[in-house]
Structures are given as C-alpha cells and as structure tokens.
C-alpha cells in the first residue's frame, strides 16, 4: 500500500517544486495540484484504509519506521485538511493577486499541507514529529509573508518559538515513550510502564498545548493574525492548531486514566478564558482567533473524557465552519476596505448576499444551532462528557456549557457589529470568482458536515434530548446576553447621548480591556522571556568570554609569558641571584624525589 504515500508526497513535491518556480501561473497550478492530488488520495484511502511501513532509520536499539496508518478517523481528518488546503489555495490565488511573493507563498502552503497530512497519517512518533515541526516552520514562513508589515516577523518568530518551546517537552516525551516501549510505532505502544507513560504523556501534552495554543501557551495565536487571511484560515481550521488535539486522540490508549484530569483542567480554563477574550476582542480576526482557541479547547475536553472520536468529529466540523469564517472575514475586510478593526469594519447585508449568508451560517454553526455541523459535534463532545462519570467529565461538562454560552454571545456580537450598524453606503467591489467558489464550497460543507453524525467514521454518543435542550438553552442564553446589550444601546433610546459604541462587549464591564488584551499574558510573557533571555545570555557570555576565554585561556598565555620573563630574568641576574635560584631549585627537586621515593 505504498500508494498511500501519494497523500503526503504529492503536496510535498508540489511545494518543493514550487519553491523553484518564479512564474505565477506555474506556481498557481502547482499550488492547486498538490492538495487536489492529496484530496483524491485521502478520499480513496477512506475506502481502503491502507497501512504501510518500511524502516526509515535504524538506530540499533530502536528503529524509526516510515509507517502510515490511515484509519477511518485519520482519513476524515485528512480529507478535511486537504480540502481546506485546496480551497485556501484557490482563494489565495485571487486574494494575493497583486502580491509579487505569491509563488513562494503557494509553495509554502503546499508544504504546510503535506506536513499536516504527515501528522495525520503517521504511525510512528518520530515520523509524526517530522510533520509536526515542518508545519511549525511553514507557519513561521507564512505568517511572516507580508514583507512590509512591521509586526509580521515578530509575530512569526513568536509563533515558531512558542510552539518550539512546547516541542522541547514534546520531543522529550516522544523519546521517553520510545525508550520505555522500545518502539515509536503508535499502533505498537501497548505495554508501556505506568510511570514512564505518565511522564511521557504529560510532556507530550505540553507540546500539544503549545501547538494548539491552549492555556498557558495561547500567547502566540492572536499575533499570528499578522499573516495573510488565507494563512489564518489554514492554520486555524483543519491544520496546525487542531494537530495538538489530533495527536492526543491518537495517543489516548497510552494515557493513564487518572491523569486525564490535567487535560480537563487545561481544556476548561482555555474554553472559558478564550471565550471571554473573544467576546472582548477588538477586531474581526481577533474574535475568530480567540474563538479557535476556545473551540480547540472543546476538542481537548473530549480527549479528557477519553472520547477520541468526538474530538475528531468536532475537529472536522470546526475545520468546515472556521475555514468558512476566516475566508469570509478576508472578503469582509477587503469589501469594507479597513484593517479589520471592529470599530470601523461595517457592511450591510445587501452589500454582498454571499458574504452575509456565509458569515451567518458559519457563526450559527460555531454557536451550535441545529442542524448545522457545529451543533452535532458540540453535542457529541458534551454528551461524551456527560456520560463519562469521572471528575474530568464533570469539569469539562460545566466548563463546556459555560463556553457554549460565551460562544453564542461572541458569535452574535460579531454578526451584529459587522452587518447591522449600517454601512457607509459606498459601492462595493464584486467578490472575485475564486474566492466566492471557496466560500460556497465551505458553506455547503458547514451545513452538510452534520451528516457525519449519522453516517460517518466516528463512534459518538447518541443524542441526549435533555442535553440538546441544555445546549440550545445555553446558546439562546448567549444570544440573549448580546441581544439585550445591543437593544439597550440602540440609537435614539437615550436622547441627547451620541450614538457611538454599541459594542455588546460592554457586558464585561471593567474587565473588558483586560480580556481584549488577552489578560496581558502575551505582553507579560514577552517581557519575562526577553528579560530572562537577556540575563541568562549575559551571564553565559560573561562566563564564556570573561572566565573561560580571558581568564583561563589568555590568562594561561600571560602566565606562560610571565614565567618566561621570570626565568630569563633569573638567568640574566647576578651570580648571587643565580645561586639562590639554583639552591632553591635543587631543594624542590630533592623534596619531590624523597616524597616520591617514600610514597612508592
């Protein structure tokens, strides 16, 4: 079944070739061909579920296998990743139509896609690690795409370094697991000693937290919005951010059950915290970025109750609606001609019917309105938590319910602020055909992905009527919070007051500023890291240059010179001095000789 490798090889080859191409048309065709071939291969694999393995590297005591395992769940994720990549390629060909650096961009998207598919398909932890880190490096390149944007390089470096910091733990965890099990094959990781498994999984969890931007490593994601909007869609929808949750589901059999509570706490804090931040965020992409963090928290929640398939189901449905939301947001910002800040970005529903409905459907799916995909997948996650009678289940169930309220609230806020404040009334340019095709496709996917609940590869809990009622109530409660604030602040109600900020984020009160800034975590972390790095680096330099180089090395050279001078002076001096030196020297030699004689 080596044909399965086409899944990864096609986009990788297209990406590598694309790096050498200068012409725009060729770059675009390579850009489409890679993910299209991968998509075809992934769909084909969904029927055959191939497995393949050859030895990649033999380190004597352990082997690394080039092993792929396309189980049904993996195939579904692969299809989602390849499809989103393909739509992003189509979209960005239009979106970056005036960008001279389009060719490397398309190539990097392809490499990114190949790396994600490798993570999805790999059956060997080291092979997975390859995809994992190549994806990080590609995200660095893609976020830094805009050469003239001053904050882009910093944001890109931050994304790479924070995820790489998580990878320190991830690599250690993989290696500990490998030494304990004697293999890196995920399918062969059965008999791992409890202690080693616990240590390794906690380390790997930290790596996944970094990649998935969960608490406390969520700091890289909001600045990563400096990249082009299609990149945000790619990173957030089906790939990098979701990869952490995906890897955790693959390793669920290794988890010591007691430790899942750690995942539950991480998921709970992230879901609620990121939801609050999304409610306060000041620009369109900021809302979507924080919402991603919160939604991936739902996937972690499913992992915490050992419901891997629920997590994957939410991953796939999230890929559809978040891809749709980001791509639509790109069009919205372009139509409004702003930088994306909520204060200035406003349209009217009539400006572009497609954009309005795409955004509406995407937000409704995110909020969890039936019968859209988001409703089913969220129900699956909370249902699994409801059924799991563990402390972890209790934690994530209530946190998930709270986060559902918040989700509905910030989705409604974004919708109201974007479309119902009245636009400026200018003529809007038409949406390019390639972009609208991507929007159409993702809209259909968002609506249809719920069908996977009935006929999909996932084993998810059956629908609970009481849970559905609770979820709907939570969603309506979220809408009510936002709607209430919006209604109170409607123009003309308090006469005499200027109608300005109608932002429902006012419900957060004084904490609004703090949440809008992500609780200042990013700034604090940046300051702390920079300060710490500067201090450590200065100390190391002092140690290295002052102590080792100047004192030990050059000092020994100086000492040798001084000794030489001294000896020369001794020889040049008068007879008395020479005799004195000789006598002293003889004495020393004699003492040493006697000492050695006595000792032996």
């Amino acid at each position, binding site marked *: 079944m080596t044909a399965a490798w086409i899944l990864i090889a096609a986009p990788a080859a297209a990406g590598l070739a694309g790096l050498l191409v200068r012409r725009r048309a060729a770059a675009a065709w390579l850009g489409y061909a890679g993910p299209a071939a991968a998509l075809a291969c992934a769909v084909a694999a969904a029927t055959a579920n191939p497995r393949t393995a050859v030895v990649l590297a033999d380190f004597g005591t352990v082997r690394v296998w080039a092993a792929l395992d396309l189980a049904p769940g993996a195939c579904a994720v692969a299809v989602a990743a390849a499809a989103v990549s393909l739509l992003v390629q189509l979209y960005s060909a239009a979106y970056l139509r005036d960008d001279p650096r389009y060719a490397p961009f398309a190539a990097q998207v392809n490499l990114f896609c190949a790396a994600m598919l490798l993570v999805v398909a790999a059956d060997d932890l080291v092979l997975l690690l390859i995809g994992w880190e190549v994806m990080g490096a590609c995200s660095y390149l893609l976020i830094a795409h805009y050469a003239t944007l001053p904050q882009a390089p910093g944001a890109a470096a931050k994304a790479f370094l924070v995820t790489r910091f998580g990878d320190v733990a991830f690599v250690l965890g993989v290696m500990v697991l490998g030494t304990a099990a004697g293999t890196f094959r995920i399918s062969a990781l059965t008999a791992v000693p409890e202690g080693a498994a616990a240590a390794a999984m906690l380390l790997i969890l930290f790596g996944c937290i970094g990649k998935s931007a969960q608490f406390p490593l969520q700091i890289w994601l909001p600045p990563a919005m400096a990249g082009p909007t299609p990149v945000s869609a790619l990173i957030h929808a089906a790939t990098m951010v979701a990869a952490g949750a995906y890897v955790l589901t693959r390793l669920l059999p290794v988890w010591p059950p007691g430790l899942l509570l750690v995942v539950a706490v991480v998921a709970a804090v992230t879901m609620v915290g990121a939801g609050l931040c999304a409610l306060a965020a000041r620009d369109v992409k900021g809302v979507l970025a924080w919402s991603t963090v919160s939604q991936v928290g739902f996937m972690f929640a499913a992992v915490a109750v050992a419901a891997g398939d629920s997590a994957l189901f939410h991953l796939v449905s999230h890929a559809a609606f978040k891809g749709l939301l980001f791509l639509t947001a790109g069009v919205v910002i372009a139509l409004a001609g702003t930088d994306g800040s909520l204060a200035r970005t406003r349209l009217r529903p009539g400006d572009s019917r497609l954009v309005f409905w795409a955004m509406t459907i995407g937000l409704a799916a995110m909020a969890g309105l039936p019968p859209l995909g988001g409703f089913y997948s969220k129900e699956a996650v909370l249902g699994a938590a409801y059924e799991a009678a563990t402390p972890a289940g209790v934690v994530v169930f209530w946190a998930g319910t709270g986060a559902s309220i918040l989700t509905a609230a910030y989705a409604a806020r974004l919708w109201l602020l974007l479309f119902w404040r009245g636009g400026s009334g200018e003529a809007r340019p038409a949406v390019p055909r390639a972009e609208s095709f991507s929007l159409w496709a993702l809209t259909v996917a968002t609506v249809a992905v719920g069908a996977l609940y009935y006929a999909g590869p996932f084993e998810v809990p059956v629908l609970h009527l009481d849970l559905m009622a609770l979820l709907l109530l939570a969603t309506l409660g979220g809408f009510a919070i936002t709607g209430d604030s919006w209604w109170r602040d409607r123009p003309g109600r308090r006469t005499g007051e200027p109608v300005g900020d109608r932002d429902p984020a006012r419900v957060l009160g004084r904490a609004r500023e703090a949440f809008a800034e992500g609780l200042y975590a990013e700034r604090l972390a940046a300051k702390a890291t920079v300060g710490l790095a500067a201090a450590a680096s200065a100390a190391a330099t002092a140690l*290295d240059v002052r102590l080792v180089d100047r004192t030990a090395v050059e000092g020994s050279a100086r000492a040798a010179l001084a000794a030489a001078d001294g000896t020369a002076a001794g020889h040049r001096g008068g007879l008395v001095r020479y005799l004195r030196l000789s006598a002293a020297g003889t004495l020393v030699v004699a003492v040493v000789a006697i000492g050695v004689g006595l000792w032996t």
Partner: protein
Amino acid sequence: MLVLAVALPAVGALAVWGLRRRPEAHWIGAGAAGFGFAAVALLPVGRGSGAWFAADGELTGGWWHQVAIDWAPSLHLEFSLAVDGISWTLALLTALLGVLCCVHNAIGAERRAADLLGADRSASAPLQVPAGTFETGGPPQGPDRVLGLRTGDRASAPLQEPPATVETEGPSPAASRAGGVPAGRDPASGSLQEPPGSFATGGPFPAAAPVHGVPAGAAGDGPESTEWHSPVLTALLLAVQAASTLVFLADNLVLFFIAFEAVLLPMWAIIHRYGDPAARRRAAAKFALFTVAGSLLMATGLFAAVADTGTADLGAIILHGGVSGDASLLVFALLALGFAVKAPLWPLHSWLPDAHTAAPTVGSVLLAGVLLKLGTYGLIRVAGGLAPDGAAAAAPVLAVLAALGILVAGLVCLRLPEIKRLIAYSSVGHMGFVVLAFAAGTEAGIRAALFGNLAHGLVTPLLFFLAGALKARTHTGSLAALGGLRLAAPALAGLLGFAALASLGLPGLAGFWGEAFTVYAAAERGGAWLALAAAAAFGAFLAAAYLLRMLRHVSHGPVAPAALGIGDVSGAEAAVWAPLVAGTLLLGLVPGPLLDLFSEGLL
C-alpha cells in the same frame, strides 16, 4: 584507490603552487580536488574484499580496503590506510568540501579578474601597487609585513624552495618514502610535508601572493576584500584536504598523529595569511597554540596506548578491545583532552569563534566542515576505540561538559552581534550534541553522534558560504547593519532561511536525526541522564531562538542601506552550494543508508 584519495589532492597542492603564476592554476586545483573526490567516491566499489575480523566468535565487520607499506618499523610507523563506513563518509565529506572550496576560489578569482579588467584602470591601479612590490621582492611594506615571516630570503625565495622543502622534512623524516605517491618529485611526495615546509622557510608566499588572483583591495578597503582568491590559497586548501583525508583513512596511530598535526599548518596559514586583517594574526596564533597543546596531550595518549599494546595498528587494537584496564582511563583522558580541543568541547572552545570569524570564507568552511570532524572522529573512533573502559568511566564528565556547552553556546549566540561569529558559536553547540551522544555510549547514541557529525559538516559550511556571500555583497557582517535581504536578494534569503532551519534541527533536514537521537540516547540511560536529555532538547530550542533572531535581523524588515542593490545568487554560486543543499535534504529524508553504513563500521 586509498592512496590516490590522499595523493591526488597532495599532488594537486604541489602542482597549483608550482604553477601559481599561470591563469589556469585555480582550475588545476579544482581538478585535483575533483579527482580526489572521485577516488574517495569510488572506495565502496568492491568493498568487503578487505579483511574481515572475527571478534567474540562473530563477524563484526571490518575495513573495506586496506593498504600497508612499511615506513619506520622501529617507530611503529607504517604507511597504512584503511577505510570503512565511518571513515569513508567523513573522507567523502572532506573531499566534497575540498572541491567546493576550490571551485569557489576559482570562480571568485575569475570574477575579480574580470571585474578589474572591466573596471576603469584608475580605480584598480592603487591595488596593483603592493602586487608589484611583491613580485620584485622589494622591501617589505604594506600587507607583506603582516606575514610576520622571516624576510631575509625573500629576494631569492622562488629559487630556494625545493631545497627548503627538503630541509624542513625534519619532523617526520621518512615522508618521502611514503610510497603510494607516484609523482616524479622524489623529495616531497609525502602529502603533508610540502605546505608546512614551505611555510617554515617563508619562501613561496611573497612571490605567490599577487599572481593571478589579483589582490583586489589588499590594501584594505573592507574586510572581505582581503580574500585574495590566490592560487596559493587553493594549494593550501588542497593540502588541508589531503592531510584531513589521511587522518580519516590512517590505520596507524603514528601516521594518524602526523596527519593530524599536518592539517594544522596549512590551516594556520590560511587564517594567518588570508583572514580578516584586523584579527587574523591573533586568531591564527590562538588557534595554533591551542590545538598544538591539545595534540601534544593526544600524542602522549597515543604513545601510551602504543606502549601498552605493543602495536600501533588502530584496527587491531580496537578489535582486541583497546588497551588494558589500568591504562584505559589515563589513555582516554589524554586522548579526549586533545580531541576535545579540536572538536571543540566546552570549555576548550575559545579558539574557535576567533578563528572562524577571522578566517576567509573557504577557511571557515573547512574549519567547520573538516577540522571539527577530526576532533569528533578521533574522539569516537580513536579515543573510544583504544580505551572503551576509560570512555565509559569518563562518560559522565564528557556528557555534563557537552550539555553545558550546548546551553552556554545557545545563550551566548542570543546576543552575538556578528553573523560569522554567531555561526561559529553555534558549532560549539552542535558539537556538544555529538559529544553528548557519544558519551551516552549506547548504540543509538554512537550512531546519532556520527550522523550529527556529518550533518553539521553539510549545514554549517553552507551557512558559512552564505555568510561569506552576504559579507562580500554588503561589506558588513553586523546584524544591526543588515536587513531586508528577503526583498533585496530573495534567493539568497531563501537559502539562508533553509540553512538556518537545517541548523536548528528541523525534522526532515539533516540536522534533526543527530540531535533528536542524542536526546533519545541520553533518555535511554535514564536517571540523571534525563536531565542532560532535557538540556539537549532545550538547547535545540535555543538554537531556534538565535537563528530566528539572525533571520529577523538579516532577512526581514526594511532593506538596510548596506543591502541596497546587492546582487542575488549567481549561477556559479548556486552550483557550489547546490550539493550541500541537496545533501542536507537527502540526509534528512533518507537517513537509513547512512546509518547502515555506520552500523557496520569498526568501533
């Protein structure tokens, strides 16, 4: 073939030096290096025909080929060469870098000559003045003084050199009987003696300097302009290549030592003569003194081993399990000290940043790609092979120093203001990984060490080539003065990004396997070694931090004044760099064959 691999570059060195006034000298050198590369590349043909050894009743592999010619039996000195998977890969790397450096040099010289011919005469006239001075053997002035060599025999230097060469064969008397070299010149067929000999007499240099390579800007209008691309530099490169190949192929401990020392002198000359004028003399002296001090300790260890076992045959000693138990730790400590200087292991590394920063581009490439490998190769094969018990006993010390080196180098790199110095310091970290993996001592560890060693030999030379190209274009290496390379020269920036990613150990590129499995090997040992594994993993994070910092300064942001209007990668440059890029990708994607080669190596 074994002898040819050593002899071809050696003969080439002589030929280039002899023909240094001819315009084609560069290409003769490149050709000699190319033939040397071909000879090394052909070594696997008919492998296994060499002797196979039985150890513990099992066939554990052995040399592919062996050559032994008596030289000075009373000194245990024998011209004996042997090759297996471990030494072959390193010899191949050496030969590859030798070819690339020679071609780089030749292209550079041609371009300069073309530039000077094309440019207006008035601009180039002042540059020619020192050249004239040299050719007439006039009074020492200007750059000449920098040589610091005896000036007495300058006037007659060109005439005196053959006798001078013979006279200076003292340190290794029988070199001329080295046998394998079919060259017609009887006195100097040993690969090693010629360039060192030449140096001691100071003969060739004054005459050689100006010849074809046009000393553009020798008077010093910028640090990079002192890269003269002189044919003598090519000759020195070939000498380094020949001597290093001999180190990797030597099967006799005394021969190994001679070759090890012989690398030092041409390298010293490359730094001293062609380096950055501000720092080259000091850096060269530091490099030479440091390394000599180390290799004297190493020599003591080698002779102790020879005395203990009664033979100087490296393969035989390794197969018999090394020296006897009592002497093991002493021998290992002496050898390890010597190799640790060369490798370099923290805290014996402080010669390296100075030498790298001061050396010309090709010098840095060879230093990083070849000289550091001598240290690690010696540590793994010679020190580890001669005294396995001592190695096991000393492993914790080595491992702690290596881990410290990884961390300290990473932290220091975070604030270095100069690109070449940054790359040089990063080598300390990478070599720390190699030593740590070796110290872990497990099977995976040894293979990771060998792999990391080789990968560093591809990636860091590429970084030095790129940094050299960057400095030649922008006339500065200061990170603060650079910027916007992505806009000014996208291909160069792309390659720099690729090399940086490879250097930070991105999986899928060559650097990954060595570093990741260093962590694995340390984790395998368990206990306190886990802390070292964590340190190594954190070191990889620091590598990402300082390399991204470098990219941010160099590639991103608005175009700096220094980078305005610089040319992008030329076809010739791309041709020189392409093998390194391809090798990095290939090793990263298909590590299996190389690891299999290591697994059958003799350790």
